[in-house]
């Protein structure tokens, strides 16, 4: 089967790679030059934080998130075999801290985890000052922390690059530098023309908004820094009544600082207020951040449905795989597995929901539907 994938962000890349491994022919379309620069997944912090996220958005993502971490462990090994590259990732957990004035936030956070039933078998550990110093000496400004040892974090840019190499090596075809205007049954339409395939997968994230009912963008702003004076070995979350931030370490003393979350679809550059909030909060984590260099300030829109959970919309000859919200890396593997399962005629995995796409009342798509055989179950 020849699969055409519109959008080479995280989901498009992962799907392309998995489909190539399963023996399919794959063409990958993207407006970028193949490096993924404009994808939301490229600027993300790529934290795999099922506990932290469940505490704020709900228990339904806890088990799927833990499952995804196990899947990443396997996939990153397979990706090393396919690409010859080892994507850096660490599984030392996350540290969650709050300043003395905001201790109630830390207790509230811990309480939420206990209510979620996450206290079992060392998944949530309370660190006093001594224990915290042992784990992370740089967090000297804090008296206590919640340690979530099962959380992880990966290097998303290294992942993007490794996936591109693997897709090349496995014979995937790239069509880059063409903006996609439509993904329809069995075809992908770009500014340069229409490309016919057996099955079209729409993986454009927020870019698919015009064609996907109920999809909205949730603006996020993120900073990339280089901070030679700060040595942190794992992701840190700072709880605050208003300015919550997280920080994820990257190789070469780089840190990703995020993220604002605004119910806005503006793609304008990062605002001064957001800079102030992110950087003021960051500076209180460690004074060494004062001399850090701001390498990038990026904004993007997370694609989300009304329940903030991923969804696959199905129609003959086309599948729209979207809605990862701020859980691209946490739930991405399960969304990809779900899409692959649906192509095989098997059910999707929780928490991914599946809907039948409503017919678009246009003459072209009606004509298309008459000639196209049901693609679901083709594999």
């Amino acid at each position, binding site marked *: 089967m020849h699969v055409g994938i519109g959008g080479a962000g995280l989901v498009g890349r992962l799907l392309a790679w998995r489909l190539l491994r399963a023996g399919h022919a794959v063409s990958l379309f993207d407006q970028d030059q193949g490096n993924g620069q404009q994808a939301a997944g490229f600027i993300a912090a790529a934290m795999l934080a099922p506990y932290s996220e469940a505490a704020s*958005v709900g228990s339904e993502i806890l088990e799927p998130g833990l499952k995804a971490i196990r899947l990443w462990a396997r996939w990153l090994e397979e990706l090393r075999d396919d690409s010859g590259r080892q994507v850096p990732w660490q599984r030392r957990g996350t540290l969650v801290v709050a300043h003395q004035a905001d201790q109630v936030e830390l207790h509230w956070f811990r309480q939420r985890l206990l209510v979620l039933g996450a206290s079992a078998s060392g998944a949530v550990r309370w660190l006093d000052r001594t224990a915290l110093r042992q784990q992370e000496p740089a967090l000297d400004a804090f008296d206590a922390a919640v340690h979530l040892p099962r959380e992880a974090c990966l290097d998303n840019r290294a992942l993007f690059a490794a996936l591109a190499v693997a897709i090349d090596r496995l014979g995937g075809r790239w069509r880059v530098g063409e903006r996609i205007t439509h993904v329809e049954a069995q075809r992908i339409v770009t500014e340069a023309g229409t490309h016919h395939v057996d099955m079209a997968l729409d993986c454009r994230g927020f870019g698919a908004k015009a064609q996907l009912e109920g999809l*909205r*963008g949730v603006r996020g702003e993120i900073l990339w820094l280089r901070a030679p004076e700060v040595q942190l070995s794992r992701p840190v979350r700072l709880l605050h009544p208003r300015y919550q931030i997280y920080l994820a370490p990257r190789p070469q003393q780089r840190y990703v600082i995020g993220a604002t979350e605004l119910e806005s679809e*503006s793609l*304008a550059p990062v605002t001064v207020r957001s800079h102030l909030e992110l950087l003021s909060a960051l500076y209180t984590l460690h004074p060494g951040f004062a001399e850090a260099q701001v390498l990038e300030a990026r904004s993007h829109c997370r694609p989300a449905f*009304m329940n*903030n959970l991923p969804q696959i919309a199905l129609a003959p000859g086309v599948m729209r795989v979207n809605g990862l919200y701020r859980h691209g890396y946490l739930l991405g593997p399960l969304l990809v597995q779900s899409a692959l399962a649906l192509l095989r005629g098997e059910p999707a995995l929780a928490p991914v929901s599946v809907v039948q796409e409503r017919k678009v009342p246009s003459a072209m798509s009606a004509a298309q539907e008459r000639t196209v055989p049901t693609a679901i179950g083709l594999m």
Partner: protein
Amino acid sequence: MSDTWQVYGETLRSRLLLGTAGYPSPLILEQAVAASEAQVLTVSLRRQAPETRGGDSFWQHIRRMGKQLLPNTAGCHSATEAIALARMSRELFQTHWIKLEVTGDDYNLQPDPFQLLEAATTLSKEGFAVFPYCTDDLVLCRRLVDAGCQVLMPWGAPIGTGQGLLNPYALQTLVKRLPGVPLIVDAGLGTPSHAAQALELGMSAVLLNTAVARAGDPVRMAQAFRLAVAAGRLAHLAGAMPKRLSAEPSTPVPGTPFWHEQGYGGNR
């Protein structure tokens, strides 16, 4: 029972106004709104890039709930800023209702009374229905009414603190001294009992956001607040018994001489 109240010509049944920020998802927000039976929803726009209609998708979702919208000027620090945003919100939401917030202290999100009064004066003259978020100071409240505000929104406690009514005395003073002006306790409520207390005191309504949005189960909490507001209102209408210093048996206890009761020095 038709226990309604009026504000700027609108007759409302519900005495619970709900904010729309910070819910786990828009879907849960929608369910919480339904459970609360609120008729008025506040919506913020300052950081949503309103000039390019950045928040449209989310706002449309809120509009579809079919409630009266009360846009707010949260995030503004001066009268000028708040006035500009109010004008923009009138265009965006097609309503002249505006919840006027002018922050004077960033850590407490405490309203700036001086800038607030200035903005309220201008906006009232321009035909806005101004809902000023203010402190519980009687003189400020009077000045806001003089400026044209037909409703006041004194705080219970600073926004997001969940402390409840920190100064019930001041709120009660407003009820007594400003009869005929609907009072909505805005901000600082944490639990349904706080809301019940506000209604018992004779406040017209309460406005909540964080207490519902950040509850473990926002939908259930919305329902709990709806019931508490109804209970508090009923209690106010019913008229509470006076407080007494000692217990008073509701049925006479025959055969117990009064000097046996505590306080008369009798042996027990």
